[in-house]
């Protein structure tokens, strides 16, 4: 084996966690806590201290299930309804039942949540039906607190390594992963008994309206690598046609944010300053009403603060300009926008994959298991819908504990030298090319086509044209050139982005109905069709290596949903006054 591996570094892990943002640290921590004897390795493309969707902290929990405010059963019902019924309820319930314990554990670690004068958690209402939002006005330090716990637990952290392919054994189970260092281009081969994918959203799929590749809603380091890793390892992905599309501050492309402002009295308004939706919770139905308002004579759409008392606005600014996206204040100042006087212009984001706000992702069950033995997924890339930061923590914890148990009962699988050699060739190619295409140009072109052809509303002819263009660009990938290790990382990310674009197109064409409001709004099938499409769409790699789709029935509900409740999210619009 060693001569086959050439100069690559090889090491072994019991549990390998890919991604050190939100779910990943919890997965690594809980695997180690479950069995301190395990060798738990955490790979991070950036640096665990400041990485992933919560690199600069988070301004609140959007799905806290706190006794006295909500029960796990109510939460499961709310998300079932918000997601038009297409959910695997067991995974939702597994999250909801551990939600409060996780909040208490984070509280003990030093994460600060809003509490009332009695010291109880001060939960706010933003969702359509229940009460689940727990503000974190001092949530800037979350990553530092997580980092401290990882060090204490003696998790082995490898920063600046981008996982590029998973390795599988002859019987299909997981065998490990290959990673490339973004500073040295060193190739790392990791043998592992269990692998947990926590690589975040596909945030560089669509192109922001600004045209700036890095001006995305998601942390742009989240380039969809996890979806590509899972797909190529043979795992099933689900409901990828349920895109992430968010209402964001125009141009700045970050949240304004209704979850923070809403409980203080801010709301989404049209150009007349009037409400047009009852509820600002981010759902596909809400985004469809937002889209219609933009298209109407009453657009554009704004977030309205200017009716609030100055001290209330100061409090909101104290959160919005310090946590999650702290450069918001600078952006507003640059344009002379003052919440006291001006409404904040909002816009529709580029598309992405992210279960944090929608429902797509690598298919996982209630133990965070994917369809590949020994492979887990958690966080924004796993299929537990509307999961947000707290869901990433909880499902990361579930994945870590289950993976620890799995690795106890299994051996390291034998590596396939052919897989390693093929990946070496793929990852070395951009460095070997003396001339060719720089990654940023290829990426720009893919993402512009994503906007031109895949951004909803969806037209099948446009999707077919997109598939043709993507196939042409796939031929171009061999011409990608990298002058250093950093550019190599970008070139390899382009491979992930193209994989995600092709998956988004295939899944959207497969589901011949409209569902989830704007997320999957098809012009040729404008209605929901429960008879044919009350199911998940599973996407996978077929024997020829191509993308294939199939239906998966929705498992019988364990928490029943009343027929009268089912369409609650379809009735968001407030009829306009004349």
């Amino acid at each position: 084996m060693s001569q086959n591996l050439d100069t690559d570094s090889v090491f072994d892990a019991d549990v390998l966690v890919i991604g050190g943002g939100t779910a990943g640290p919890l997965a690594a921590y809980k695997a180690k806590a479950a069995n301190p004897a395990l060798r738990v390795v955490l790979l991070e493309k950036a640096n665990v201290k400041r990485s992933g969707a919560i690199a600069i902290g988070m301004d609140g929990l959007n799905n806290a299930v706190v006794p006295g405010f909500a029960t796990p059963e109510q939460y499961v019902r709310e998300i079932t309804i918000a997601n038009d019924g297409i959910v695997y309820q067991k995974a939702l319930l597994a999250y909801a039942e551990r939600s409060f314990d996780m909040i208490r554990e984070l509280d003990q670690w030093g994460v600060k949540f809003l509490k009332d004068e009695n010291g109880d958690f001060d939960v706010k209402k933003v969702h359509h039906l229940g009460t689940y939002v727990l503000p974190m006005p001092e949530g800037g330090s979350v990553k530092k607190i997580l980092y401290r716990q990882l060090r204490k637990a003696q998790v082995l952290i490898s920063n600046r390594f981008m996982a590029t392919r998973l390795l599988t054994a002859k019987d299909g189970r997981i065998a490990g992963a290959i990673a490339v260092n973004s500073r040295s281009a060193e190739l790392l081969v990791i043998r592992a008994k269990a692998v947990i994918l926590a690589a975040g959203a596909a945030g560089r799929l669509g192109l922001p309206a600004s045209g700036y590749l890095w001006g995305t809603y998601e942390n742009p380091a989240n380039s969809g690598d996890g979806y590509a890793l899972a797909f190529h390892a043979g795992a099933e992905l689900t409901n990828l046609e349920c895109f992430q599309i968010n209402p964001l501050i125009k141009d700045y492309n970050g949240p304004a944010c209704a979850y923070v402002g809403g409980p203080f009295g801010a709301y989404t308004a049209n150009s007349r300053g009037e409400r047009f939706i009852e509820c600002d919770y981010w759902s596909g139905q809400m985004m469809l009403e937002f889209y219609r308002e933009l298209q109407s004579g009453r657009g554009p759409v704004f977030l309205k603060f200017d009716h609030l008392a100055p001290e209330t606005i100061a409090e909101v600014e104290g959160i919005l300009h310090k946590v999650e996206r702290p450069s918001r204040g600078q952006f507003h100042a640059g344009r002379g926008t003052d919440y006291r006087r001006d409404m904040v212009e909002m816009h529709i984001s580029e598309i992405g994959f992210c279960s944090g706000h929608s429902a797509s992702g690598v298919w996982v069950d209630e133990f965070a298991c994917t369809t590949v033995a020994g492979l887990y997924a958690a966080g924004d890339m796993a299929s537990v819908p509307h999961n947000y930061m707290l869901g990433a923590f909880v499902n990361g914890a579930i994945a870590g504990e289950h993976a620890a148990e799995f690795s106890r009962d299994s051996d390291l699988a034998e590596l396939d030298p052919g897989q390693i050699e093929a990946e070496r060739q793929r990852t070395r190619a951009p460095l070997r090319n003396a001339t060719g295409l720089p990654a940023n140009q290829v990426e720009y072109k893919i993402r512009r086509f994503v906007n031109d052809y895949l951004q909803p509303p969806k037209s099948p002819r446009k999707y077919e044209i997109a598939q043709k263009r993507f196939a042409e660009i796939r031929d171009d990938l061999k011409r990608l050139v990298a002058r250093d290790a950093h550019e190599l990382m970008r070139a390899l990310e382009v491979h992930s982005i193209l994989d995600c674009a092709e998956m988004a197109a295939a899944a959207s064409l497969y589901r011949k109905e409209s569902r989830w409001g704007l997320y999957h709004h098809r012009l040729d099938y404008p209605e929901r069709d429960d008879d044919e499409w009350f199911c998940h769409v599973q996407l996978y790699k077929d024997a020829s290596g191509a993308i294939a789709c199939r239906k998966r029935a929705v498992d019988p509900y364990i928490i029943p949903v009343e027929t009268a409740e089912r369409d609650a999210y379809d009735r968001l619009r407030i009829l306009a006054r004349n």
Partner: protein
Amino acid sequence: MSFAENPSEFPVTVDPEKCIADKGCTICVDVCPLDVLRIHPETGKAHMKYDECWYCLPCELDCPTQAIAVSIPYLLR
């Protein structure tokens, strides 16, 4: 290599008087999620090497000497 130069204004600026990278500090380089900062081999000071900024601010917030200023990239400003 046949790349054209494509100039753009860098959002991250470093005050060389305040920057202590030449004394071994690498905090801004470490905390950048996009890994766009480097220590310049000649000046020993931190600088932005790749135009891939998310204007997320850890470099500015975590710098021990307040040497860094991040502005919103011009295309978004």
